[in-house]
């Protein structure tokens, strides 16, 4: 099973998606008797109105940027990495585990060490799927979905059985020198959970942009994505490229998980479901059509919707269920931007073919 690669497109598609999503959300609110205008105002003021809110928006965008980058790399190579959340969870676990295991290391070793452990764990987890894909042609969609579950329940078992004692379901906080949240940032953003991870995210955006556009590996990844057979015929090692794209993808997802472990929560606990950052990262990447710079903006949009959405039911009587439906419908249109893309491209094609037909009939008459 191969899912068609998403084409890079202009900025109009994402903008139309967002707009349609907001309109549908407004209709839903009207039908249930709530005022969409006030609610949308509350949403945006709740997301951008105070330093605290802005800090939270950036915090929730931080891991999304990384998982979205991870998705876009695999997607460039023609793979649909559905396992981002499992890889992120593996990275989350590894980073926290490392930080808790060596509490006496100085910060300049412990912090980078934990972050790198997170990336390695994510890479290992996606590497399994990449290896199976490269050597046995196993569908990466199925293997990554299943690896997600193994990651979820495996992590929970490790948290309960190894990292905590006596039935607790969350670990102690990581040592201070391994935390990405600092008192300075908390002061700056009115005690939000904003953390230094955003710097790592922005840096990785640059790295991935450079990797994909300026290096041989990036070229090979894109070639394999366009046509695996042609790439092999041109002398590229497709197996190596497949595996390295999956490794990179998983490493980025693992980094995203490490952001949750060292930044947002500063510990790991028994998760009842896979972390949202994986699936949201896919939507973020699709909305940005895989463009690294676009990913920053679409991740911020997701942050605005998530954090601002909380404000709607706090400042009005709209129940949180309605808010969730509205947010989900915006995300739905964002994810379904295929439809908009499809319609636009169909329109262009029918335009062209109409011309062709009219040309040929003209030619026929001559």
């Amino acid at each position, binding site marked *: 099973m191969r899912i068609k690669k998403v084409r890079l497109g202009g900025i109009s598609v994402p903008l139309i998606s967002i707009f349609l999503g907001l309109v549908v959300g*407004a209709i839903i609110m009207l039908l249930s008797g709530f005022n969409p205008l006030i609610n949308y105002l509350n949403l945006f003021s709740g997301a951008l109105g105070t330093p605290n*809110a802005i800090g939270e928006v950036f915090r929730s965008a931080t891991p999304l940027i990384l998982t979205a980058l991870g998705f876009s790399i695999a997607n460039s190579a023609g793979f649909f990495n559905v396992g981002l959340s499992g890889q992120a969870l593996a990275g989350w676990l590894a980073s926290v585990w490392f930080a808790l295991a060596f509490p006496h290391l100085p910060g300049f070793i412990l912090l980078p060490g934990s972050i790198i452990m997170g990336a390695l764990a994510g890479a290992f987890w996606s590497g399994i799927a990449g290896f199976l894909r490269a050597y046995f042609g196993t569908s990466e969609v199925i293997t990554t979905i299943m690896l997600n579950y193994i990651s979820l329940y495996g992590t929970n078992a490790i948290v309960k059985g190894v990292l905590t004692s006596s039935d607790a379901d969350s670990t102690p906080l990581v040592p201070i020198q391994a935390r990405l949240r600092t008192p300075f940032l908390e002061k700056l953003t009115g005690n939000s959970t904003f953390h230094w991870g955003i710097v790592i995210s922005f840096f990785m955006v640059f790295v991935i942009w450079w990797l994909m556009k300026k290096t041989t590996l990036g070229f090979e990844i894109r070639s394999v994505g366009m046509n695996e057979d042609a790439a092999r015929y041109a002398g590229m090692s497709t197996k190596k490229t497949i595996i390295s794209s999956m490794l990179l993808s998983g490493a980025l997802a693992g980094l995203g998980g490490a952001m949750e472990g060292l930044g947002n929560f500063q510990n790991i606990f*028994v998760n009842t479901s896979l972390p949202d950052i994986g699936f949201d990262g896919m939507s973020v990447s699709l909305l940005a059509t895989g463009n690294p710079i676009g990913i920053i903006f679409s991740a911020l949009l997701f942050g605005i919707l998530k954090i601002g959405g909380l404000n709607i039911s706090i400042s009005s009587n709209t129940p949180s269920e309605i808010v969730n439906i509205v947010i989900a419908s915006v995300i739905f249109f964002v994810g379904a931007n295929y439809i908009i893309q499809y319609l636009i491209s169909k329109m262009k094609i029918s335009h062209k073919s109409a011309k062709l037909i009219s040309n040929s009939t003209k030619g026929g008459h001559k």
Partner: protein
Amino acid sequence: MKLGRKFSLIAVLMMVGIGLTACGSNQSKSGNKNNSSKSNISAALVTDVGGVDDKSFNQSGWEGLEKWGKKNGLKKGVNGYNYAQSNSDADFAPNINKLIQAKYKTIFGTGYKLVSAIKNAAKANPKTNFVIIDDVIKANNVASVTFKDNEAAFLAGVAAAETTKTKKVGFIGGQRGLVIDRFEAGYRQGVAAVDKSIKVDVKYADSFAKPDVGQALAKAMFNNDEDIIYQASGGTGSGVFSAAKNEIKKKKVWVIGVDRDQEDEGNYSGGNLTLTSTLKGVGTVVEKMATSVQKNKFPGGKVSTYGLKEKGVDLTKGHLNSDALKAVENYRKQIIDGKIKVVERPSQLK
């Protein structure tokens, strides 16, 4: 042509949407302007992922807050009383901060999962009152409330042991942890106190918000001839009730409810299958705390523990027969008098 029509349809839809949006803004601006100038006693509750409609723990807390608000003529919303629903653990901190910014005076955290978020917020906002339920935080502006759930669960165990016909009963917990440990331990001790030969089957759903898992676990238990299930699993418990409603068509089964009187959840066409419920006075405590803020007597820095003696936990009469009721009353007395000590951990059971 065809596509052109599709596009015009979308365009029309959009315009309708915009038009409706504009209409909406004219209709209801008045509802948002009720700034009371009274001294600020507003209170809000942050749920865990179960939500205020979990028919159990969170709902009980919210009902308490609603009752208090209505009694004091407050409205739901800013300057009154409200709740903030958390969809995931990542929402705890932003939700609390949003409530602080909306100037709620007292903020309740229902559930031990909120402990670290409340701890951080309390440190940064010394003027706001916080209440944490089911855990303990040491800070001057936090009141901690814990319940001796194990004592009520013990009575539930007695009730189950007195009622079972198959000599097999079940327990479905939400997530293993210090709180649900109390339920499991108390229940098992209570069953054993009546009849050591009765088997207790203990299963965990690993979530407080997965009714489908609850249903599957309960179905397996009923198939295994267990005729009474005590569910201590928050929102997951509604699945236990639906499994029981399917099973009751074939044979007699009972469910024991948790945290609030779940009599309503047990209604089916032929009667009611909620044997009894253990009560946890979350609502009463929330109400009490909100009132104490009103009277400037907020018990910040203190830990209050509620057991059978303090009437913080209890067991409803439900559909217990007179023998079972007698046994429950007997054990209740012994616990209150301190003759029976109910353990808190399954590992402490003999």
